[in-house]
């Protein structure tokens, strides 16, 4: 690492130039007004120094036009900043549908990562350049935050729920990965690297080590060994086509069956009871690890079409424009 004096971090994602442009605009506004006020104060302070101890300047009361001007002009400026920032944030919250979905679990003090093909890594994240990558984050203990400065993205990993972030890397290279939410003793060592590779190299890397099972396969196995299959598809709601469909509950409320809903239904199975069913499913809280939950969710998400037996037409797949 060198000691060059840089003002912007590497620009390595599609977000980076957009955020940097806003950053430069904000600094222009800040510099303009800070210098304006500072120079005015110094100038006026010297120009109108007290000439005699008993001097009293002629009273001056406010000017309505001035007050309106310095209310409205800042208002216009901040509204521009609001919409500009919100637009970037909106993109940040809208991962493309074809993004590669990678699972990330934070724990004191490491990042555990698993790719859809099964390859696992710790404190390193390999991603292909030019492809959208979506990270589904959770935490096994306290709140962490997945931060890649070169991508200008950050998202907290919160225990008990899934959060999502995405990016599209634009430059091959190695970039810092930091935990940005204070998480205890070794917080500053919960760091790693994001390695952006050419797509071919990424494919080669994915198969380059004894393959772990993909989360979907592992989830399917769990689905059997945990006994889920005994009820689901028979007297319990089937899983096929469930993901992102509209669910109706005994209390009349509805919800779109997203990642967090699936997670909740596994761990807190009686929180929401699907209309027409009894609250008989046991809770799997403290029975299975955070990773196993993610694998089960992956498996359920993979069951996109009704299976051959049919019978799941009560869960029409909802159009899913956004996954948040």
């Amino acid at each position, binding site marked *: 690492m060198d000691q060059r004096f840089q003002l912007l971090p590497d620009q390595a994602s599609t977000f980076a130039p957009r955020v940097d442009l806003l950053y430069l605009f904000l600094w222009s506004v800040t510099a303009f007004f800070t210098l304006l006020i500072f120079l005015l104060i110094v100038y006026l302070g010297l120009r109108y*120094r007290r000439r005699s*101890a008993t001097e009293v300047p002629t009273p001056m009361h406010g000017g309505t036009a001035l007050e309106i001007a310095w209310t409205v002009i800042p208002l216009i400026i901040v509204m521009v900043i609001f919409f500009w920032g919100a637009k970037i944030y909106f993109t940040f919250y809208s991962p493309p549908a074809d993004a590669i979905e990678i699972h990330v679990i934070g724990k004191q003090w490491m990042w555990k990562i698993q790719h859809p093909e099964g390859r696992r890594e710790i404190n390193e994240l390999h991603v292909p350049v030019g492809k959208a990558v979506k990270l589904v984050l959770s935490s096994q203990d306290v709140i962490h935050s997945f931060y890649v400065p070169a991508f200008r993205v950050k998202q907290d990993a919160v225990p008990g729920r899934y959060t999502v972030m995405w990016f599209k890397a634009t430059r091959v290279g190695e970039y810092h990965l930091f935990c940005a939410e204070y998480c205890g003793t070794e917080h500053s060592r919960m760091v790693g690297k994001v390695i952006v590779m050419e797509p071919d190299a990424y494919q080669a890397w994915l198969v380059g080590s004894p393959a772990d099972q993909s989360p979907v396969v592992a989830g399917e196995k769990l689905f059997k060994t945990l006994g889920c299959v005994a009820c689901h598809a028979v007297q319990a709601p089937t899983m096929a086509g469930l993901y992102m469909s509209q669910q109706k509950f005994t209390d009349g409320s509805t919800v779109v069956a997203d990642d967090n809903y699936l997670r909740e239904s596994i761990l807190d199975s009686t929180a929401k009871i699907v209309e027409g069913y009894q609250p008989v499913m046991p809770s799997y809280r403290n029975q299975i690890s955070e990773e196993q939950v993610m694998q089960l969710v992956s498996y359920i998400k993979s069951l996109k079409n009704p299976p051959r037996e049919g019978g799941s037409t009560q869960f029409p797949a909802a159009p899913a424009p956004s996954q948040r």
Partner: protein
Amino acid sequence: MTTDPIPAQPIDFDPVESPRDNYLNVNYRIKSWLLTVDHKRIAILYLLGITFFFVIGGIFALMIRLELLTPRGDLLKADTYNKMFTMHGIVMVFFFLIPSIPAVIGNFIVPMMVGARDLAFPRLNLASWYIYILGGVFTMIAMVSGGVDTGWTFYTPYSSVYSNTHVALTAIGIFVTGFSSILTGLNFIVTIHKMRAPGLTWFRMPLFLWSIYATSLIMVLGTPVVAIAIVLVGLERLFNIGVFNPALGGDPILFQHLFWFYSHPAVYIMVLPSMGVVSEIIATFTRRRIFGYKIVALSSLAIALIGFFVWGHHMFVSGQSLYAGMIFSFLSFFVAIPSAIKVFNWTATLYKGSILLATPMYYAMGFIGLFTMGGLTGLFLASLGMDVHVTDTYFIVAHFHYIMVGGAIMGYLGGIHYWWPKITGRMYAEVPAKIAAFLIFIGFNLTFFPQFLVGYLGMPRRYHEYPPEFQVYNVMSTAGASILAVGYVIPLVYLLWSLKYGRRATANPWGATTLEWQTPSPPPTENFLEPPVVTHEAYDFSALSPEVLAGHFPGSASKA
């Protein structure tokens, strides 16, 4: 400095030096201080407590800066470092910044400014000091018996489940101290409503009263919420009651909502009183009514009100919904407007004023510059797409230090210098005071400006170790902190020195218009020899006689 110093003459309410009783010499016994119900003596008690905590918090800050001089964690262990920044935050926020101006300057000045003999509830006032000290004792015990490492924000479930440090004891300390803040706020609200002198209408009130009033509203309405949040952390920690811990069915994000519902407005508890002090100083040292007085007064209330609806901007990457983020961002930009209005109005007040560049004015001008910078960098953080990148980095650290140190502490020091003659009856020494103010300004900027840059480069806050490419900024920061430390020590020396050797102050050395200057320095226990009556709006300098205006012109009169 000036051409025709008019000798300070004794005028009717202004016996320059008389052997009469004042609130300081009326009784010297320790008991008369510890059981006093005189708001002025209670202010002195607070001053001692707050100075103590400022020194403690400052030592923690220096340890942090020394550790960060090098990228490796070579001075402190990781756990020790984490405790340092946690206790720095807790001490500085809860035991220094929040009580600083309200409890010291406010306690001393508010009753005098409204023309009253004391606050509405003098005994409650004394009780609030004891509560503050009690909270401080709990927190100090927690610190010397091993400390706490959660960060001053106490985020769950780290604080409620995972931390092995003295969270509960510290939480009790903060909880207890919160009541001191509530009672002080209550006292100010009632005093300002019920005890104003005849003729002192709302829009004749000095702007310091407006800002203290707005601050008190936040103290009374906001503090209970953080108190509840802290109690819930304690309950979860001690009795495993699931509130925030997801393993017990709780919601860790709920804590952030409760915490920031108070702690964002708490930023305004810290900076609004400084704004009030700055308004007083600028009026007096320009001999001008503050430009747009009414708008400046009402903008304090606007800040207090809007400040309650922006807390979610601390949580843009916490996983809260897109639309919650949008609403909180939108509202956050609105809190910028009344702050901007104040800055423009203060600046306009200078135009064609009669400006005396004494030390308080140095601090006021420094405040405006640094607060402008702090406020504008707040726009970066209110902006959603930008905040995602810079939140939880040194950019945040730099921003809130510009507000809390550059803003709040500059205002506090300005106020201490401005009212020092009134409080002690002595003038401070102008030359070292100006040197210190200058050092503080330079040291402050050198400490915190590089943190904006290194924050944008991605250096996360609360990092004991960091990648070596960030070192150059950290070296600058540590160098600046050293200058800042010197700047803070100098006033401690010359202010103490002035107690014995400073020139004696006249009743109204600056030629100010507000009521506290219309009684001897230091004031008698009952504040005013006769109850004052107000016949003018605030800052009507044309109503002052030349003798009063001449006051005690620094540098013009001989030493006592």
